[in-house]
């Protein structure tokens, strides 16, 4: 997977002080389990030198297939893991080598929404407590009032606070995780495949909700997905990852309209769309009439 690394888009990489997140030459190497007593454990390069800049208010999409390194990248951006080398700055502060204690600002300003809400919501906590928990940890004065406000913002009734996660449908659980993520008033929302497990009609509802909230609270959105069409709808900038590298990056309009890297082209060609499929049906349909 090391063949042709495209550098044709490096010019669009604007690592400047206006960025809420900037990464420089980030490498993350994992050790595989040892296979021999005499030889060192083999290493895997999950990220091989990633540079990126995400501006305040930007809606930044990351697309890639499994093993591309997109999950590793967002774990590093969220300070949940440390890079092997390279630098990651959040609001100008270096976070790649900072201690956990000094990262409290990041724990408030960056929040995450995961793919599977059932795996990320404590089944034994009431919804109200789940949403309140980050506020309590940060010493918020009016946690209770804030919960009602947040439930309303994500379109759930106030009575939802007294129920448990299993009493809700998949789409409603995703609303709960969004409410929890928004409770400490973050600047950046990182959404990792937030609609991949949802049905089509629910997906549209959750995407609309995310867009509303991003506008309302002026959030910066980092949106990770394997689904190219969802990223195109949600984001204004997209980075395409493969084999631990960003192979192409640019505005959605440019990347989807005129992809440069062969991998981006292959990915776009492989993604099934209704228009492409129906165009293939049309001639066969109209000839017998």
């Amino acid at each position: 997977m090391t063949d042709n690394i495209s550098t044709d888009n490096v010019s669009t990489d604007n690592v400047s002080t206006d960025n809420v997140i900037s990464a420089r030459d980030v490498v993350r190497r994992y050790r595989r389990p040892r296979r021999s007593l005499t030889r060192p454990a083999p290493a895997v390069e999950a990220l091989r030198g990633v540079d990126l800049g995400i501006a305040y208010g930007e809606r930044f999409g990351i697309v890639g297939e499994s093993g591309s390194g997109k999950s590793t990248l967002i774990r590093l951006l969220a300070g949940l893991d440390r890079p092997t080398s390279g630098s990651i700055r959040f609001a100008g502060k270096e976070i790649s080598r900072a201690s956990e204690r000094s990262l409290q600002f990041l724990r408030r300003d960056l929040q995450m929404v995961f793919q599977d809400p059932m795996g990320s919501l404590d089944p034994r906590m009431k919804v109200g407590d789940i949403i309140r928990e980050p506020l309590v940890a940060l010493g918020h004065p009016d946690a209770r009032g804030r919960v009602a406000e947040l439930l309303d913002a994500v379109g759930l009734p106030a009575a939802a606070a007294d129920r448990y996660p299993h009493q809700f449908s998949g789409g409603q659980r995703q609303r709960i995780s969004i409410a929890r993520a928004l409770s400490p008033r973050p600047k950046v929302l990182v959404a990792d495949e937030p609609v991949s497990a949802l049905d089509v009609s629910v997906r549209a509802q959750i995407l609309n909700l995310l867009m509303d909230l991003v506008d309302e609270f002026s959030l910066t959105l980092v949106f990770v997905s394997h689904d190219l069409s969802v990223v195109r709808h949600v984001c204004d900038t997209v980075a395409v990852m493969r084999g631990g590298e960003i192979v192409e990056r640019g505005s959605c309009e440019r990347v989807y309209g005129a992809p440069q890297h062969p991998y981006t082209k292959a990915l776009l060609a492989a993604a099934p769309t209704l228009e492409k499929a129906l165009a293939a049906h049309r001639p066969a349909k109209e000839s017998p009439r």
Partner: protein
Amino acid sequence: MSVLTGSVLTVDALRIDAGAIPLVRDVSFAIGPGERVGLIGESGSGKSLTALSLLGLLPEGVRASGSARLDGVPGDLVGADERELSKVRGKRVSMVFQEPMTALNPVMRVGDQVAEVMLLHRTQPSRARALAAAVDLLDRVRLPEPKATARAYPHQLSGGQRQRVMLAIALANDPALLICDEPTTALDVTVQAQMLELIVELTAERDSALLFITHDLAVVATVCERVLVMYGGRVVESGDVYEVFTAPRHPYTDGLLAASDLSAVDERGRLRTIPGVVPGGGEFPDGCVFRNRCPRATDQCVQTPGWTGTPERGFACWHPVGGGQ
């Protein structure tokens, strides 16, 4: 609905219940030889249960009634006992599931697993011949180095490769009907595209009919010629893929298409949605199952709408979209 002569599969008035909870109602359709039919719907629509009932694989406590006849099989598939079904499964009808890792035996080499289905149904005379046929099949599903792959265990293969092995097993005895239940949902897009191509190519070669279950409208339009739309355990609309997707008549189909079209947005840049949520099993309203979420519903909808149109192209709705009220 009449039994179409020359159909591979004819399902008539199929219903499925879990105790007192109705899960599937009045499902009738037919599939011709070599025809590719899609079954679409969201979770809880009853599409997977419909497929499982054809193979006698419904979970404990879930019962089917009605009729499902498969060409070349003397009895009815619904209500058949395990002995009869085991002669049919893997031979006349076979299935590819979403998750290949749970469908494959983890302690058996994949070549042996492909050979097994031929030995069980005695379509190959000896173990050696069955193994040779298995290597051939692994080559046909385009696995690299089929001889070596035949000796691999499932965990040594990628998700896409495992799904190819599943397809090889399913097609080993040239079934009259292949059922695929979300076969590419867990795969990456580039792998998905290859897998879909392979399914179409290999079923066409054998003239096997295909029943393809998915929630992905783009995938069903890529693979199938005809489509059945399920909601709340009923088929609400069916017809030619192009017709149904360009001129839907049932408000649910219309809403589903609008919600999945990420390029069509309102003036605020928001997607069209279907209001409300899909009710849980057995909690759908009586009468029209969609009426509590339908923008066109009236008092008339408390009566179950009948089927309008032909068995091939039609819908079940009192107030269909298009066609000028």
